[in-house]
């Protein structure tokens, strides 16, 4: 019960501090806002401000409990003392008509019931894969070390963590559930802001319908009840949009500050939310286009851009400094770095664009009705989206459709249903607006949507794999059911995480071929795909059992003896995705004897220069890979430091290397490259007998002594049947996961 109270307190304290911070700023802005719009807008704006303060705390490595609690308490106190808490300095403007009883009843009951379901799910121990995995895994890690640290082997750590910054104090006080409850608070704020927006434009029924369409959407419910960030992102995006409306009505420059801050914070929350900054800048520029001189019309735009940069800039700078890529883990072919392979980004993006769907034609039905592929549905009511075009007859409708379309523009980069969430508020309101103020129709729409989204009814029509709320775990929320029991039953990988804590000493890292909920273990989990170095290790491990990846061929260049100071092998064929150029070893010979590698040799490669040493480490269990599709001009280059006699060059490659074409070149005294030979002969040889053990040695040599393999992983049988052949010892086995230790 104490845990349940701590979770509620942690979340409540954080949410109150967000509201307080927002109230303080709004009071300074002297904005005119009604109370019903000031509350959600203050919370969302305050979240942006607080996120920056927590970023600073983590950057300074002072993220201790008293510092975080002090920040929250001081913010709340300041808001109370100055009167900002109750909006003492915020004008409420002209009154609007109160909501009708029928609207209150339909919206209130429907939203209220869903809110209780979400609240209970958020309050229960966190079981969502990404929430318990990287969202809170990173938060837990940051709290363990009291600050940020560069995690070059975790691509998720490279993403901006705007919302996770708010999870930090909540988690420090009330652990996982507190963070999920903070996210739930964003869903409530979003619904209230949408409701208030309807009143602002004089269409309360449209606002209520829009708010309920979004709030009761099944994927919104599942997301808002977990420590995810999508619903928070939607709230931030809608907040930015709302402030543009407020500015447009009141035209005070100061009102562009929240517009810019929230536009930047949207990027900090989720990269794909950046189009709201385009919307905000575009609207501000458009509305000021007639101002003269030109500097006067530019000033509002620069103010928005500057404020946006205040929020997004720290994340961009962090990534540029730590990961050599301001938008890490993306755009790696532009911002080349040793941490993420270009090929991985290609693979990953490709998967996210299709989610295994054979064709995207049924995507509309998949995202609204089935949800098996795209992990969730937004609800059948959104099949009415074309109706939203009827909202174009209103200025508000045009703006909503434009903002929604901009937010939707990034959707096809990741077709997961939750990636629709940031555009839902706009489309929902546009659908509502399309019906004007036809109360009966809109009430019917709300009731039908609520019924269709009600979890037991969802079970009748969605795919069994559709991500949705499936339980009402009030006993787990109140901790009547022990969290341990609930988690073991409902969290995939929780038992494995606990096993790691029991069996692995200290803070030793564990290399895993399967996802583990990081936030439930104190050990760093190196997941096989999460970075270039992890991928390289996984490639080495897979080489132990996968014949297709083993070194079985040599490509041999034989040529008349010559003296060379610098030689390179150039790949000349245009490959096709996903074919890479791989070289296990590159060896030079003279009269049949290999030239011993000397420390003054200098090795280079293009692309993927950082891993060139893998082709020169004398291990057939490691290989240099181009890290992107093979293309002409790729090379491996060796400078011997002096003239060396050479008459043969060998590359050891895998069986799938027939698509590459190679030529050998030597640098002349003037530095130009001279072709020596092409079309190397191919020799076949046996797979090294100890390749499994050699693969494990690479793990061990990098200071990694523990390996987790899921029973369902490819090659898992090979480990399980004969761990000793791998130089491994099984030290733990639970719910389909085996934990091995290296025995060197």
């Amino acid at each position, binding site marked *: 019960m104490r845990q349940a109270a701590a979770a509620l307190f942690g979340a409540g304290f954080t949410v109150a501090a967000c509201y307080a911070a927002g109230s303080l700023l709004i009071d300074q802005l002297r904005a005119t806002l009604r109370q019903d719009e000031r509350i959600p807008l203050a919370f969302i704006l305050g979240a942006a401000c607080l996120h920056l303060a927590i970023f600073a705390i983590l950057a300074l490595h002072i993220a201790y409990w008293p510092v975080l609690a002090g920040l929250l308490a001081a913010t709340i106190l300041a808001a109370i003392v100055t009167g900002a808490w109750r909006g003492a300095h915020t004008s409420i403007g002209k009154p609007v008509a109160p909501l009708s009883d029928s609207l209150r009843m339909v919206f209130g009951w429907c939203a209220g019931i869903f809110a209780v379901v979400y609240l209970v799910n958020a309050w229960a121990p966190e079981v969502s894969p990404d929430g318990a995995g990287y969202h809170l895994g990173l938060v837990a890690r940051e709290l363990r070390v009291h600050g940020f640290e560069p995690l070059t082997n975790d691509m998720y750590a490279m993403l901006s963590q705007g919302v996770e910054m708010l999870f930090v104090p909540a988690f420090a006080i009330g652990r996982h559930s507190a963070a999920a409850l903070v996210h739930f608070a964003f869903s409530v704020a979003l619904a209230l802001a949408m409701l208030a927006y309807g009143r602002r434009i004089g269409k309360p029924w449209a606002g209520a319908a829009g708010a309920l369409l979004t709030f009761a959407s099944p994927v919104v419910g599942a997301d808002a009840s977990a420590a995810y960030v999508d619903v928070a992102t939607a709230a931030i995006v809608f907040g930015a949009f709302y402030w543009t409306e407020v500015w447009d009505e009141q035209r005070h420059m100061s009102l562009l500050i929240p517009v810019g801050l929230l536009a930047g914070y949207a990027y900090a929350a989720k990269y794909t939310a950046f189009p709201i900054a385009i919307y905000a800048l575009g609207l501000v520029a458009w509305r000021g286009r007639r101002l003269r001189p030109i500097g006067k019309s530019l000033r509002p735009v620069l103010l928005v851009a500057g404020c946006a940069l205040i929020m997004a800039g720290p994340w961009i700078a962090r990534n540029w400094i730590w990961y*050599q890529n301001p938008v890490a883990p993306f755009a790696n072919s532009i*911002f*080349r*770095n*040793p941490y993420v392979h270009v090929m991985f980004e290609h693979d990953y993006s490709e998967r996210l664009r299709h989610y295994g769907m054979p064709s995207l034609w049924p995507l509309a039905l998949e995202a609204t009705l089935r949800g098996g592929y795209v992990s969730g549905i937004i609800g059948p009511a959104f099949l009415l989206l074309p109706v939203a075009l009827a909202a174009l007859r209103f200025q508000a409708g045009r703006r909503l459709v434009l903002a929604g379309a901009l937010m939707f523009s990034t959707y096809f980069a990741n077709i997961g249903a939750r990636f629709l969430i940031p555009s839902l508020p706009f489309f929902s309101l546009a659908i509502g607006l399309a019906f004007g103020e036809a109360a009966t129709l809109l009430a019917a729409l709300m009731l039908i949507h609520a019924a269709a989204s009600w979890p037991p009814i969802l079970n009748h029509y969605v795919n069994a794999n559709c991500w949705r709320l499936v339980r009402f775990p009030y006993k787990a929320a109140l901790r009547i059911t022990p969290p341990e029991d609930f988690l073991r039953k409902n969290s995939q990988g929780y038992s494995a995480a606990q096993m790691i804590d029991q069996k692995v000493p200290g803070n030793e890292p564990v290399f895993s071929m399967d996802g583990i909920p990081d936030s439930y273990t104190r050990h760093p989990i190196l997941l096989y795909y999460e970075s270039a170095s992890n991928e390289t290790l996984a490639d080495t491990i897979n080489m132990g059992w996968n014949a297709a990846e083993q070194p079985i061929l040599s490509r041999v260049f034989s040529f008349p003896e010559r003296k060379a100071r610098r030689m390179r092998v150039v790949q000349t064929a245009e490959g096709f995705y996903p074919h890479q150029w791989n070289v296990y070893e590159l060896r030079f010979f003279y009269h049949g004897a290999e030239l011993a*590698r*000397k*420390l*003054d*040799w*200098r*090795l*280079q490669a293009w692309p993927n*220069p*950082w891993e*060139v*040493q893998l082709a*020169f*480490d*004398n*291990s*057939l269990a490691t290989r240099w890979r181009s890290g992107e599709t093979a293309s002409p001009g790729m090379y491996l*280059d060796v*400078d011997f430091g002096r003239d060396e006699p050479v008459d043969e060059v060998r590359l050891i490659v895998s069986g799938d290397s027939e698509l590459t074409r190679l030529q050998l070149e030597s640098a002349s005294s003037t530095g130009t490259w001279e072709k020596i030979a092409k079309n190397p002969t191919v020799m076949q040889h046996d797979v*090294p*007998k*100890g390749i499994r*053990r*050699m693969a494990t*040695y690479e793990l061990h040599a990098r200071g990694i002594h523990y390996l987790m393999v899921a029973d369902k992983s490819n090659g898992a049988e090979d480990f*399980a*049947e*004969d761990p*000793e*052949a791998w130089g491994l010892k*099984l*030290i*733990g*086995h639970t719910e389909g996961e*085996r934990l091995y230790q290296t025995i060197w």
Partner: protein
Amino acid sequence: MKRRLGLVCAPVLMASACRNMPGPFAPPVQRQPLEDFRPYRMSAIVDMADEDAKTHFVRDLTSNASATWRWTGQWPTLRVRMRSVENVRYTIDFAIAGAMLAKTGPMTVSFLVNDRVLGRIRYKHEGAQHFEKAVPAGWVTAGEDITVGASVNKPWTPPEGGPPLGIMLTRIGLTQ
């Protein structure tokens, strides 16, 4: 104005034009050549302390166990698998309980591979025992299940009842 714009743009363009390339690398530490690798001594030993020991049980392994050993019945049998079967040796570590010997007198344990008797020893004294012997060629097949076990001629039923007990098994299996 143009000059000012140039001053602003030039460093930005230069920075974006810089290719993030590291300098050349020296050859790394050389791994041991393959032929120098310590030849791997294959084994398929089931240790009673192993997490997955139970997955190898075929019959007559009781639930009466400590962290490192387990009481067997009269014919304890386990299943293992080998990738290759050259120079295979049977190996077993177990203990004989004094209380049992006091009741049954000296006992004979037969050691079995695929239900064929590899060896037989008569034990008169309590304590830890080890038996190891080469398995004749042809008794086992690579890549197929192999049963390893033992047979006790005089099982003992403890006074408090329960199933008849044989030996206190610690580990059993095949090595190369």
